């Protein structure tokens, strides 16, 4: 039943994947990807967000079924019924970004649990404990088996996950962004551990977008971009610059007839040393300072999850700033509410309109006026003036070319592009001085994308300052006067339009700051 791949009989390989395609709805996540993992290597899988790294590994692990393609594991082709259960049985283990541990159980219980079956009423804990202690000693784990998982640090919890995979008998370990939640010291420890594991003959796949990690431990590096495999390079003789160049699209050119207007001197948004902390003390925004002038589009580049969303939410007032200050038009709004900031001139296009940008079961008209319906002419003494609302809605539908049967239609019935036009029209209806736009074209088709970008450029031409947060480098290059690059909650570099350089921005995004980067970023505070 299982066919052997004839050309690989001589050379042993851990995994071979051929012609893998996978689509989610209209999105083609993977297109014709071929991958081969050698036994006993550490392979880094790098690429920007949405490049398909995690999807590819989820297919290997049996979580997703590929639309097309074949997979061989240890020389045998897998069947159509490939599943995580089978993957584990065949020695493949995967650690996802979010751990799957039970906090109230001990390390021992967590590690042993996957091996227990319903029939075993009384597990032989002593045998498991002895075996585990041996295993832990062999790899230099510093875990106490009786500690509760909830009492462990994140780094230690990750060790538990690894121990769990090893104890399950995994010979191929897949780690998805394992360092995203770790401190630098924990990262070093993890990378050391991976080297030890490799030296025992295991194969490791490290999914990451941080090139420094890939360069530090891997034997070879596979680059994915936009669902396609771009290249697999041996680490020896490759530089981080080369890999970064492959990660971002080289075809990108600084086109932009869009941002030709010269920004004015007047400063509409000023942010000083902004810090945003989560409850757990992790700083998602770590001392960011920036300014946006009237008529200027300032782009924020960065791999998603480096604090951009939190920065935007803190600016708009949805999230509390731990320290630092925010000035709109020179007025300090740090302690003011969302509404008060909007009155002061803040406009906001949120990252995910389904999540917090629209009221799907309410009419297009109501969606359009929601942010200023309490002001004349839309209401007086708390009573809605339906006719004025309808008129304003008709005007906006006309002005923004929103395709809807009428202003009374529920917004959820519109297409994504038209929904985004409603969001845009609403944000601009209050005549803001500064517009914070997060991923304004995410999920839109080409025409709608072009429309939104034109509109943003038009805003700048009218003297509105725009802070454009986007993971689409192409969009930033087209529109921005300046691009600030965020990495781990800090602004690590600033590039002006006259010296836009895709390669350099790519390096900054992946934490490979070139020498002169420090001077550029006005937010690169010390400490």
């Amino acid at each position, binding site marked *: 039943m299982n066919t052997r791949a004839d050309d690989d009989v001589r050379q042993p390989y851990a995994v071979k994947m051929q012609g893998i395609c996978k689509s989610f709805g209209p999105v083609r996540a993977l297109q014709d990807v071929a991958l081969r993992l050698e036994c006993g290597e550490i392979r880094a899988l790098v690429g920007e967000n949405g490049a398909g790294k995690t999807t590819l590994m989820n297919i290997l692990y049996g979580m997703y079924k590929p639309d097309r393609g074949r997979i061989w594991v240890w020389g045998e082709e897998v069947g159509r019924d490939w599943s995580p259960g089978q993957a584990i049985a065949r020695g493949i283990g995967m650690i996802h970004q979010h751990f799957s541990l039970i906090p109230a159980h001990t390390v021992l219980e967590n590690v042993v649990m996957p091996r227990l079956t319903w029939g075993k009423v009384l597990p032989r804990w002593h045998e498991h404990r002895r075996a585990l202690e041996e295993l832990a000693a062999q790899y230099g784990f510093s875990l106490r088996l009786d500690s509760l998982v909830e009492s462990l640090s994140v780094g230690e919890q990750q060790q538990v996950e690894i121990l769990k995979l090893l104890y399950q008998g995994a010979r191929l370990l897949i780690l998805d962004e394992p360092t995203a939640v770790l401190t630098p010291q924990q990262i070093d420890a993890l990378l050391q551990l991976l080297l030890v594991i490799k030296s025992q003959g295991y194969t490791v796949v490290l999914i990451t977008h941080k090139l420094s990690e890939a360069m530090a431990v891997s034997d070879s590096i596979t680059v994915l971009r936009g669902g396609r495999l771009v290249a697999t390079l041996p680490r020896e003789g490759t530089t981080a610059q080369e890999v970064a160049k492959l990660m971002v699209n080289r075809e990108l050119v600084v086109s932009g007839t869009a941002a030709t207007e010269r920004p004015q001197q007047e400063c509409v948004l000023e942010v000083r040393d902004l810090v945003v902390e989560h409850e757990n003390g992790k700083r998602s925004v770590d001392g960011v300072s920036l300014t946006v002038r009237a008529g200027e589009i300032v782009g924020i580049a960065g791999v998603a999850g480096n604090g951009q969303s939190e920065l935007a939410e803190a600016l*708009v007032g949805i999230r509390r700033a731990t320290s630092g200050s925010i000035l709109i038009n020179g007025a300090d709004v740090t302690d003011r*509410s*969302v509404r008060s900031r909007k009155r002061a001139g803040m406009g906001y296009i*949120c990252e995910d309109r389904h999540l*917090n940008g*629209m*009221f799907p079961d309410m009419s297009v008209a109501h969606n359009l006026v*929601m942010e200023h319906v309490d002001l004349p002419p839309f*209401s007086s003494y708390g009573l*809605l003036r339906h006719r004025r609302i309808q008129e304003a809605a008709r005007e906006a539908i006309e002005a923004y070319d929103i395709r809807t049967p009428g202003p009374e239609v529920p917004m959820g019935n519109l297409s994504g592009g038209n929904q985004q036009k409603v969001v845009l029209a609403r944000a601009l209806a209050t005549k803001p001085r500064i517009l914070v736009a997060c991923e304004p074209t995410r999920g839109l088709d080409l025409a709608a994308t072009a429309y939104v970008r034109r509109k943003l450029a038009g805003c700048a031409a009218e003297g509105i300052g725009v802070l454009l947060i986007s993971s689409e480098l192409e969009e930033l290059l087209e529109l921005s006067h300046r691009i600030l690059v965020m990495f781990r909650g800090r602004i690590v570099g600033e590039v002006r339009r006259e010296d836009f350089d895709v390669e350099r921005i790519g390096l900054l995004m992946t934490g490979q700051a070139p020498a002169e980067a420090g001077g550029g970023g006005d937010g690169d505070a010390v400490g």
Partner: protein
Amino acid sequence: MRNSIALKNAFITKILRTGWGSSATLAVLSMIVSLLALCLCSYFAGASPLQVMVALFEGALRGRYALTTTLSEWVAMTLCGLAVLIPYRAGFFNVGGQGQLEVGAVAAAAVALSLNAPRPLVIMLALAAAVAAGLLAVSVPLILRLRRGASEVTTTIMMNFACIQFMYAMVTGPLKDARSWYGTTPPVPQAYQLPSFPPGSGIPAGMWVAALIALAAAWLMNSTVFGLYLRAVGSNRPAAVAAGIPVNRVLTGAVLMGAALAGLAGGLQLLGYTFRVAEGWSKSWGLVGIPIALLGGNPLGVLVVGFLFAILETGARSMQALTGAPAALIYLFQGLPVIIYLGLRASAWYSRWSQAAG
């Protein structure tokens, strides 16, 4: 199997396209199906479905006494429906209507039994006390929700138990009728009872209050900034936050309004219908308010569905007496249409969703 699902989806999609998929249509459809189920059940119980329906509606609508009873039931059903609906539209599921109603009635009884003043004043004060008690009963779940994010479904259900036990403690303790052998308050003196309006017509004054409140609620929802905000908060709370709507204030307002109406229902029923608070004095108006609100969908819908439920409640007894079909069948009707309705709506959503995804 797959084919039949696809066929069903196509059918529902067609309904949606022609505008027949609105909540109101689904609600009417589910109630019709439930009435048919009622007929079927009574057939199996050995009664003729036609006779059962006739007895049900005649028992509720024919004759002055029956009509007065039905209208009195309608008062509580409407107000309790609104007590669920208004907070529900803001994203707060008030399951505590029953408890709010019980403490409202106790508070009204305490006022009406202890004061000696002109009739309008006593009635006003008693109803104000009922409202205040309803507000007090919801304050704990509300504060827990706002401050701690505790699920109001759990806390309001638990408050029901606390409120009902409080009612028992009152009617067997401080407010107990000394002449009675079971836990009950003395009857509200005739002078302080709610009259019928127009006088002598047998139409309870509370009905006009409830109807006016329903109309006012409809106006509030559709024509005020607060109503728009309320629907926005219920539609997508994070989006309301991002739009700068004072979410917690809106939520608090909606919840207090709901609880006030449940408390008021208790006061009105005491002064106009039962005249006593006693062990087991109340029907489960507060709980029936939940299906009424879900099926009604808006304040005017609550008024209509509330009337249907009131007919069933009143007609059940004559149905049992005349046809032998057990009155408990009516409780089937209190649950069944909601389940059918939610099922229909879920499949309508599903087909819309799968259409959007595919």
